[in-house]
């Protein structure tokens, strides 16, 4: 199977031969940081363009098509515009927190890039509590949003931030329970082990109906967690103009915007890792020839293909559904998703104990 391990290993060998142990570590850190920032920027550009194109196609129009071929440079042009715009700070705002908030949101998004397995043996940090790390860190993002809403000294922002707080705190629960079903099946919190456990089939196929239910709940919950429509109450534009980032402009606004898309990427990456086998190719039972062909497709293509499929699904939701009201949002979580996922977890535990999965 094709692997990036040879490349990373050879870089490691070359660096330690030339720079010594400490130097190699520092150099590796620098390379990783650069790669993370590059991924961040590229993802931002690609996802924003993708969103606009998907929206346009669903809305019987063409979407951006003026800057570059098929509008591919549109987001770059938009970013340039946002960079040169003036970043206003309102008069009555708490200036320190107001300026800090976008960075917190972005740093949280960046931290989450660490434990994700992008390809076979290509992972920044294979921590043994990877899944726990992801759930723990991802809930920090709400602090940035609350901070932004409160510091803006604007009624709309405050309402948006409060909604966002209530929403993320509740939906963490069912997202966590959905993740837990896979942890129960795998018996491990480490991302690389979870991926390895799906070598003979993805969990969504191996785990029978409970895994599918868990997958659906996971998708709904993370859509809510990333403040995407139909759960975009925090920025509900027809109600609160722009919610928590009403007062933000220029690059500070762009950071919020970018962080939203990075968050979508991350939650979809987690979803792909847990339910769709991460970078594992599609293997079907005893079809040796088929499995062999699938192995030829590079693992990074598998991973990004799955992630982008999930991202497309979330975009599809956004451009189809109306927004929920705040009380309906909480109803959905506490009356529907949470009981169902609790019951589901019970089922999965039974399956795991009895060893009924493949």
């Amino acid at each position, binding site marked *: 199977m094709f692997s990036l391990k040879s490349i990373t290993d050879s870089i490691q060998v070359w660096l330690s031969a030339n720079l010594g142990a400490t130097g190699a570590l520092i150099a590796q850190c620098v390379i990783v940081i650069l790669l993370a920032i590059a991924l961040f920027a590229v993802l931002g550009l690609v996802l924003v363009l993708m969103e606009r194109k998907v929206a346009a196609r669903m809305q019987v129009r063409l979407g951006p098509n003026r800057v570059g071929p098929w509008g591919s440079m549109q987001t770059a042009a938009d970013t340039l515009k946002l960079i040169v715009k003036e970043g206003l700070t309102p008069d009555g705002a708490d200036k320190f927190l107001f300026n800090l908030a976008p960075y917190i949101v972005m740093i949280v998004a960046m931290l989450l890039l660490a434990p994700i397995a992008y390809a076979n043996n290509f992972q920044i940090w294979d921590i043994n509590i990877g899944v726990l790390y992801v759930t723990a860190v991802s809930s920090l993002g709400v602090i940035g949003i609350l901070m932004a809403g409160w510091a803006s000294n604007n*009624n709309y922002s405050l309402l948006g931030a409060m909604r966002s707080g209530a929403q993320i705190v509740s939906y963490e629960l069912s997202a966590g329970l959905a993740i837990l079903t896979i942890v129960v099946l795998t018996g491990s919190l480490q991302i690389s082990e979870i991926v390895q456990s799906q070598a003979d089939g993805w969990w969504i196929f191996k785990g029978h109906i409970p895994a599918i239910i868990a997958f659906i709940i996971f998708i709904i919950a993370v859509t809510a967690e990333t403040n995407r429509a139909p759960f975009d109450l925090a920025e509900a534009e027809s109600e609160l103009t722009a919610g928590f980032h009403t007062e933000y402009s220029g690059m500070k606004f762009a950071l919020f915007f970018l962080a939203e898309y990075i968050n979508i990427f991350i939650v979809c990456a987690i979803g792909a890792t847990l339910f769709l086998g991460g970078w594992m190719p599609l293997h079907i039972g005893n079809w040796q020839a088929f499995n062999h062909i699938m192995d030829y497709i590079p693992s990074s293509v598998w991973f990004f293909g799955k992630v982008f499929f999930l991202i497309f699904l979330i975009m599809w939701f956004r451009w189809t559904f109306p927004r929920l009201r705040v009380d309906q949002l909480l109803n959905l979580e506490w009356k529907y998703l949470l009981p169902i996922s609790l019951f589901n977890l019970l089922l999965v535990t039974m399956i795991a104990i009895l060893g009924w999965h493949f």
Partner: protein
Amino acid sequence: MYTETQILKETSTSLLNGEGELVINVGPQHPATHGVLHLVITLNGETIKKIEPHLGYIHRSIEKMCESLTYRQFIYVTSRMDYLSAHINNHACAMAVEKAMQIEVPQRAQYIRVILDELTRIASHELWWGALAMDVGAFTPFFYAFRERETITDIMEETCGARLTMNYMVPGGVMADIHPNFQQRVKDFIKLFKKNVDEYDDLVTGNVIFQNRLKNVGYLSPEDAISYGCSGPVARGSGVKSDIRKIAPYDIYNQVQFDEVLETAGDSFARYLVRVKEMRQSISIIEQLIDNIPEGEFQAKTKAVLKPPKGEFYTRVETARGELGVYIVSEGGTTPYRIKFRSPGFSNLSALDHISRGSKIGDLMATMGTLDLVIPDIDR
């Protein structure tokens, strides 16, 4: 009670007003107000305690303007009131002048007027449908609505010469005969519309989120609907018969078969259903008329200068938003002495405070959407 200037002062120093309530200004620039409506909303958490509309951001004093325009000229100004039913407004004014001058309108002109009225009504409801979906957070229906509406505006452009402010009505008939392609294009539109209207149901009407957003929201009882002077789909959503086309049929409305759509629930979803069903009724009216337009004159012979006799004339028509009344006081001159436009939106807006107290901000957008407010119609 506070005035506008005080509100601005209060909100700039603290988020709460003196009584610990959150006061927010929705509008004049706000995505959900579709224009320059300014609502000062007093909130308790997310719950609405009071709504106070501030109007006048687009007040052009059309009533005063009309006092210096002749009876031929003032018709075009009324397209700018409720610009989504511009044609129906013009129709009302032309009818008022005809009533005053006792002009007999030829049959052909009446048919053309009614067909165009109904097309306008469909176009207006289409836009409302898209805008309502956008208010509750779904963007895509807006584009589907505009796609169908575009077909209607194309038909309008071909026959009337303009897409939005048609000014096709003149006292005594219509300005020009219909375009030779008109009948065929309307039939094509009917076919297209019948195909696409099912999509609306799939995408929006049946959607569980949408239904939950509208049901039991903004309840308007029949008594309140009457007391607040509501008309059009707002009143019919509460089960109050208020269709002028049935009450006082004008032109050839007494010769066509159609039902007055009534829903009794009185909530936002009932108002939604009334409008969606009305679109189908309008299609059936057009279907009855489009093949039977009689031959003949499209315009009655009228004098160059119109001088109605001294007196008062009141005409009513059913626009897409409700009952539009034109009250003309004539002193026998070439210009009206006084004109009053009884606009449906103004009365419908006055019920907004009453029906949205105690609901959430999200509900307000749904309620406002189903009241179908067009701000130039309210401000005039």
